[in-house]
Structure formats: C-alpha cells, structure tokens
C-alpha cells in the first residue's frame, strides 16, 4: 500500500506492532550487548520500555494523532530501562513535541522532521554522545528520511529506504566503536532500533493485519530472526590485509570484492591499500587482492567462533578489557588559564577549579607585566586566558597581549568572585570563542562585595572616613563604613542580596580573620538568609577581611 499521510490510527498500530517485533527478537539484541556494560540486557530493556509504550497505547481509546504520540512518549518514559531504553524514550519525547495538537495526520516530511526532532532531543540529553550506538543509527536514519521525504511522497518507500540505510549504518558501528569491533558485533541498541523500524514498516505494508495476523506475522519474524541469532553473522571470516603495489584503483578493487562478502572497507594511500571484508571465501579475497600487488599483514578470523566465545564469556560474566571500551578521546587541552589572586586559600580554590597557574597579586600589589608574561610563557598551551581579578591588573594583562607570541585573551574580571565564576564556565571541550562567551556571561551574574579598611582619612558622600575604619564595597561602590568588620559584612550582604529571593552567598575570609568570628556570623547569616546557601572558604588574602559574592 502506498500512503502519503499517516494518521493516529495507523501510527498507533505501527508502534504496537513495532514493540511486538522487538519483544520477539529481544534475545538477539541481548546477545549483542557489549556496550556500555556487557551485561546482555539491552534487548530486554528496550523491549520493556516499548512494551509500556505499547501497553499505554492499547489502553488509549482515542485515535487522535497528538494523543497517540503523547501516549507513546509518556509510556516509553515510564517504562524506560537501561541506557537504550532512556534513549528510546527521548526519541519518542522529541517526536511528540514536534507534532502540533491540531494535526490529524502527518506527511512523510513531517514524520521525518518529527523523527529528527526526536534524535535532537536524544542527543541533547548527553554530554558526550558515543558514536557507533543507537544514537548514530537513529540520526542517520532520520537524516535519510528527511532527504528522501523531499523527493518521494510515499511513506512506505521512504521508510523502507531509511530502514535499509539504517542497516548499513548499523553494519558500520564496529568501525566507530572499538569495543564493538573487538567483540565482532554490531551495536545492540542500534539493532534493537532496526527491529522496531522493521515492525513499523511491516505495519505500514499491511495495515489491515488483524491482531491475530499480527501475532502470526511476528512469530514468523521471530523464528527467522532466531536462526539468525545463533549466528547473526552471515559471513564467517573477517579478513584483513594490506596490498602494496602501484596504481591501485581503490574503487575498482572495492567493486571486485563486493561479490565476496559484506562490511567491505577499502582504504588506501600511496602504494598501499587496506582491505577489510567479511566473507565466506577468504582465499578468493586474497586472490583478488593479489592481482593488485604484494600482500602483507594478512589476518583471517572466524567470527562465528568469536561470537560464540563472546556469548559464553557474557554468560560466565567474565570481564572484558574495559579500557578499550573508551573511545579514543581528544584529551589534549589547548587552552591554559592564568589567574591573579592573593592568598594561599584563594590560590588553592583557583587551582582546584582548573586554573593552570595563579600569579600572586591583587589590590596594592599588582603583578608586573613581566610577572604575568613569565607565567604565560611557562604554559604549554598556545591559547591562554588571563583572569586579572582586579581592575588595576586588567591593563597590565592587556599589555602582555602585545608582547607574547601566544594567543592571549584577557577576560576583564574585576574581582576574585568574578574570576571564580568565569572559571566555572570554562569547558576545555569547547572552542575558545564559546568559552570566552560563556565565561563573560558568568561574570555578569555575580555581585561582588569586599570588606577592607581605610588606609587614610577621607570623606565620602558627606561621611567622614577615618584611617582604620572598616569599609564595605559593593561592585566598586562604597556602601557602608563602620568600626566593626562583622557589622560591615552583615550590612554589605544585606545590600547585596536586596531584590533576590534566593541564591548563593559565598564568603572568602582573609588571613586577619579568626575562625571564631566566622562561627559567630555564620549562625546569624543562616538564620537571616534562610533561602540562600551560604558557603565559607578560607581565602587567606591580606588587606580584605572578607570577599563576598552573591549569585
């Protein structure tokens, strides 16, 4: 049958059937499960997730499209088990969010867009998407669907195309994820998704299936897939080799190999080609290769045996070499951070938050350009961000830019709390521009207060300040003058939290403050600002009794 729209009734049926097909094949999927934890339950988890979605759909009286997708999203969320189950629920969630409530049916393009939105939502829920998993398979299928739906107006055809494309991608997952390659399996979650899609397609192809026919059809799938399950591997031998020769035509070589097996990868550079192929005739592979040049590094593995061993291994719960489960990651940090602060406590805080170096300096003891420069030159990084943490040092830091050959970025932090806030926004995985943007944003959210003493007599707004008076400064503005530093702190915080209902008050106390006075005010503060989290750190700075931040 050919459609150009899918309505709620059909979608409901298709999801229920998809869940059914997956349930029948969950053991196949279980057997593939080596990532992230080889506990052989991916299929079971996915199936339980889908079962709940299907169960909720069966209970649903309405055939209204929006209700159907929302119910599926809700059911899969409630039923979500395991990593892949949670991913599935996100796919449904994104899908349902993309469907507006007045729609009665959707076109292939709308379907593809909804699927894509599901994929986006699944990707958003993870800081480090691991490629070569269900995520990859889903994304590629969604992209394929999107591309096709602009050309073809037949849901079934689009779906069939996406499915076969998805299978191709699935076959490539071992190339993307080392642990899969070593276990000689494709990704379990991806395989589960393929089963779901198969079920979905079956329901599209034959929407008139009654429930019992659905059962039968599904059982057939089951029997077939199970035979397949005993060895999901159609080709027994994984063959890899190098060819050394001149003028190797990689495309032609690939074509010659294409009849001999699947999972073919032919790569090469000048004078050398590498072949990877799954085949039942490794000898023929070598014969074909021999035509092009000299062979070396020949490796033939029996994947059936390896697969059996893998399953045995899983059953006896023998551990795998987990180090290899980690994908190679770019851990190289390209950006260094140099902060300026004063006092051992603050220095420790900066270092613990990821600063590479801390230059001693602050009010009345500005580091010289030379100080900053030498700190920067020590860094092994090309890019260095400077956090001056004082307005008088910003200028000095800017000078360094002119002298150093490195790429220097000065983030104009005017206080220690701003510096800390900026540092928290730093993510070595991001580009320097993104980092600078994020860090600058964080600086704006911080209110800084400083409690210090007057070094000489002066006057401010008609108030006389005597030498030795304690003064409270909020973002560079003098707020309060008192004799007692705790009183100043309290008044200052009062001013800083004005207009805020909740937040975080962080107090860095200096070297001239003893622990008992902290104890005294801490009780008072927690009683007074019940909605705020209050934190104390020994900053160890001189000059300032207290540095306070409110966020």
């Amino acid at each position, binding site marked *: 049958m050919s459609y150009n729209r899918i309505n709620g009734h059909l979608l409901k049926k298709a999801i229920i059937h998809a869940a059914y097909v997956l349930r029948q094949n969950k053991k196949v999927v279980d057997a593939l499960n080596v990532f992230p934890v080889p506990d052989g339950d991916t299929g079971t988890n996915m199936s339980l997730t889908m079962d709940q979605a299907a169960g909720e759909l069966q209970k649903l009286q309405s055939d209204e499209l929006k209700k159907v997708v929302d119910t599926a999203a809700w059911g899969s969320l409630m039923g979500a088990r395991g990593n892949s189950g949670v991913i599935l629920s996100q796919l449904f969630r994104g899908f349902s969010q993309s469907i507006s409530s007045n729609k009665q049916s959707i076109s292939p393009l709308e379907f593809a867009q909804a699927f894509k939105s599901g994929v986006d939502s699944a990707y958003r829920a993870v*800081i480090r998407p691991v490629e070569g998993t269900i995520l990859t398979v889903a994304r590629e299928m969604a992209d394929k669907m999107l591309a096709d739906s602009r050309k073809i107006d037949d849901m079934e055809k689009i779906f069939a195309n996406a499915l076969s494309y998805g299978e191709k991608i699935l076959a490539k997952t071992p190339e993307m994820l080392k642990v899969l390659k070593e276990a000689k399996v494709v990704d379990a979650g991806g395989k589960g998704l393929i089963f779901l899609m198969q079920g979905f397609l079956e329901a599209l192809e034959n929407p008139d299936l009654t429930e019992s026919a659905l059962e039968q059809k599904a059982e057939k799938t089951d029997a077939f897939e199970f035979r397949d399950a005993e060895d999901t591997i159609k080709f027994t031998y994984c063959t890899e080799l190098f060819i050394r020769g001149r003028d190797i035509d990689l495309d032609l070589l690939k074509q010659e190999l294409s009849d001999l097996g699947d999972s073919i990868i032919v790569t090469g550079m000048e004078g050398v080609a590498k072949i990877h192929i799954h085949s039942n005739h490794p000898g023929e592979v070598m014969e074909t290769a021999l035509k092009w040049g000299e062979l070396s590094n020949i490796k033939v593995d029996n994947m059936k045996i390896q697969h059996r061993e893998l399953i045995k291994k899983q059953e006896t719960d023998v551990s795998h070499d987990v180090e290899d489960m980690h994908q190679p990651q770019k851990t190289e940090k390209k950006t260094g951070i140099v902060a300026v602060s004063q006092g051992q406590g603050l220095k420790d805080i900066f270092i613990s938050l990821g600063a590479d170096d801390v230059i001693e300096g602050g009010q009345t003891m500005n580091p010289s350009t030379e100080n900053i420069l030498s700190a920067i030159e020590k860094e092994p990084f090309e890019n260095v961000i400077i956090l001056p943490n004082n307005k008088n040092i910003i200028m000095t830091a800017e000078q360094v830019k002119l002298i150093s050959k490195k790429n220097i970025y000065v983030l104009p932090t005017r206080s220690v709390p701003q510096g800390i806030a900026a540092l928290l926004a730093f993510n070595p995985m991001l580009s320097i521009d993104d980092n600078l943007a994020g860090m600058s944003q964080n600086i704006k959210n911080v209110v800084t207060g400083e409690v210090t003493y007057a070094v000489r007599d002066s006057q401010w707004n008609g108030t006389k300040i005597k030498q030795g008076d304690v003064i409270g400064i909020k973002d560079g503005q003098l707020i309060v003058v008192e004799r007692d530093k705790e009183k100043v702190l309290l008044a200052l915080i009062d001013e800083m939290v004005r207009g805020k209902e909740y937040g975080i008050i962080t107090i860095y106390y200096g070297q001239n403050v003893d622990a008992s006075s902290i104890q005294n005010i801490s009780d008072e503060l927690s009683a007074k600002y019940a909605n705020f989290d209050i934190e104390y750190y020994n900053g160890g700075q001189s000059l300032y009794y207290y540095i306070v931040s409110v966020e």
Partner: protein
Amino acid sequence: MKNIIKNSLGEIEISREVIALLAGNAAMECYGLVGMVSRKMSDGITELLGRENLGKGVEVQLTDDKLVIDLYIIVQYGTKINEVASNVIEKVHFNLKNILGFDPDKINVVVQGIRIK
C-alpha cells in the same frame, strides 16, 4: 586500605584522585547525564564541570574496609531520573571493577540538578 593491591613483589596503591577520575569518566559515558557538578562547591555554585575537572564531581570515601563513591550529577529534564542514575551506578561499578579490580561497597548518586532545555 582498600585501595592497595598486594602481590608478591610489593604493593600498588591507587590514589583517590584516580578512582574519582575513573568513576567520573565512566559516569560521563552514561546516557542522560548532561554533566557533573563540583562537590567542593556542591551546595552552591552548581555548574557543569568540564572534562578536566570531572574528578571534582566525585567524592571517594576510603577507609580500611570500605570504598564508597558519591557522584554529583545533572540530568536532562524529561529523562527517567532514577533510571539514568541507576545506569550510572552500574557503569561506574563495572568500570572500577574491571580497570582497578576494586569492588566499591557503595556508589551513591546525588542528582544535583536537571537541565531544562
């Protein structure tokens, strides 16, 4: 101590930081976790930690007979939080057992925040 492995030639001691980093890395591979939060500033500045600083979102309590690991995480709004957290526990347990040969007595996950986006 629980972090010492003895063999006939001597002892291997694994520092807390290593344990924390391994646990943090394992957790990051879990789906649904969008970040880890510093435990140091735990109650306050809840900010995502970059990769470099993962260990800070992990607290390792180590005594003579116990190894307890606390992870401070942020998850995505709309995921099943208990499931994401139990995936994290499983994965961390698995990795520590396999890489270090340690069997943590307890792995606690503290969900410090949810990201809504």
